């Protein structure tokens, strides 16, 4: 019984003399990490991406001969059985690759 009381006394004594730890550095550290980890707002992210895309387009336009590339696209198409077969083949291959990519983790 006495020993039990001693343990209680010891904890009482510890509680009464519990030191106070200064918040200055600790609190600043916590808030700094929180601010650093905070996600960028959606509007800010979209604006940055749009600006990047615009700059990219402007640079590409000045470097690549787009008019020549556009002129190279054929203006007339003849759809024959071999073309249809090729299109069907490309679509099938795309579907197989898409299925494999999506289900890869489950296979």
């Amino acid at each position, binding site marked *: 019984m006495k*020993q*039990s009381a*001693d*343990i*209680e*006394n*010891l*904890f009482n*004594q*510890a*509680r009464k*003399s*519990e*030191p*106070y*730890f200064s*918040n200055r550095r*600790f*609190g600043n*550290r*916590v*808030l700094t*990490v*929180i*601010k650093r*980890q905070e996600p960028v707002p959606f509007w800010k992210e979209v604006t940055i991406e749009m600006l990047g895309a615009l700059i990219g387009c402007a640079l590409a336009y000045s470097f690549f001969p787009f008019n020549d590339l556009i002129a190279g696209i054929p203006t007339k198409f003849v759809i024959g059985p071999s073309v249809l077969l090729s299109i069907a083949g490309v679509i099938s291959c795309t579907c197989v690759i898409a299925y494999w990519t999506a289900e890869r983790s489950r296979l």
Partner: protein
Amino acid sequence: MLLATDQALIERVVTANCHDSFGILVERHQSDLRYSLRQMTGWNEALADDLAQETFIQAFKSLKKYQGTAKFSSWIYRIAYNQMVSHFRLARNREVSASEEILKNHSQRIGQSTTSELDLHRDLAGSMKALPTKQRVAVHLHLHRELTHSEISIIMGIPLGTVKTLINRGKKTLRNLLSSWNPEDKL
């Protein structure tokens, strides 16, 4: 000057993402939590402060999930307990087990310690280190923080009966460990 309640500060953080309000919450609870984590980690100051920091960061991220059914301090302790358990699980082999050697050495050291107040806390933390993690946490929350069995049960996520068993076993081990030590020597 009127002090805002924890609940009012939490609402401000959740609705307006107010960092200053969260700063006040940190200021209010950090000392208790850092002391408790020191007791629970055998007075490992660096580890205790790292765990406390992670606890507050986790609390900030999950503040929307806080329903206000328990006290904010209890909720914080629950996060801290989970952080500590995860840490010890990762560093499983590093945690000191309660070997007879440790019990013997510590008992001797406690008997010889100086009268400084900080020594009392360090010695207590050292003795607590001899207990398994769950017993250590349960004993600290019950005897030092004076939380009820049901509050401890919520914090640790274990049944009420298990809490009582942990506390009784922890007390028994501490009694054996501190049998050669007289609290009056410290005064």
